[in-house]
């Protein structure tokens, strides 16, 4: 098993995920990419600034990856890259890649990782709108032990 977690100053590149999945014993590679879209809650978005608390974010995302690998039977490789600072419309804010011997496990692990990152990773986004206004997006309140039990 291998876990690669990194942060990108600006948008994530597709290739930065795929080049970190190199296990030839794995016949499945499942990817998730999150992109900045034009409209959120009825407002026209022009870009998003991402803010993150890097040391804790890296630790939390690594823990999430470890949980996902444990859930699918240990034989998985994971790469996660999250953007910080400015990401424009159509650009990627996050990339997640999971490789496993067969496809079902890679789907499951990839879904788990993105859902948990949204709930637990200390990352915030500030949306910029066409009308010139800005707003920090509402999120999920943290607590000390807010991860799902994986045993």
């Amino acid at each position: 098993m291998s876990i690669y977690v990194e942060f990108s100053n600006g948008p994530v590149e597709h290739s930065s995920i795929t080049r970190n999945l190199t296990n030839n014993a794995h016949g499945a590679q499942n990817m998730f990419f999150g992109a900045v879209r034009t409209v959120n809650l009825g407002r026209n978005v022009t870009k998003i600034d991402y803010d993150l608390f890097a040391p804790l974010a890296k630790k939390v995302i690594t823990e999430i990856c470890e949980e996902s690998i444990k859930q699918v039977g240990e034989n998985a490789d994971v790469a996660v890259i999250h953007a910080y600072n400015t990401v424009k419309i159509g650009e990627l804010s996050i990339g997640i890649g999971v490789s496993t011997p067969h496809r079902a496990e890679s789907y499951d692990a990839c879904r788990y990782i993105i859902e948990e990152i949204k709930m637990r990773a200390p990352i915030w986004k500030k949306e910029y709108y066409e009308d010139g206004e800005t707003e920090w997006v509402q999120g999920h309140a943290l607590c000390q032990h807010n991860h799902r039990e994986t045993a």
Partner: protein
Amino acid sequence: MAKVTIRLFGAFRNYISDESVSLEIEETTTAREVRKSLENYFIKNAQNFDSKIIEESMLATDNAVLNLDDKIPVGETLAILPPVCGG
């Protein structure tokens, strides 16, 4: 008394331009008490401060989110983390 530095993230950046805030605290202070001191700091120093954000936020070190009843680790820089929305 000891000085604790608290880094600011997310919506806390709306209220002051500094990257962090320094507070004088008792060395046996809990995270709950520091959070209250931080709320008082913002009420005094920031315009239109909404205390709801403090109630929804947690203090953390570089390695862990602190429980509200945890003693503050002396000498460590802390962070105040509002509700998160990565991805």
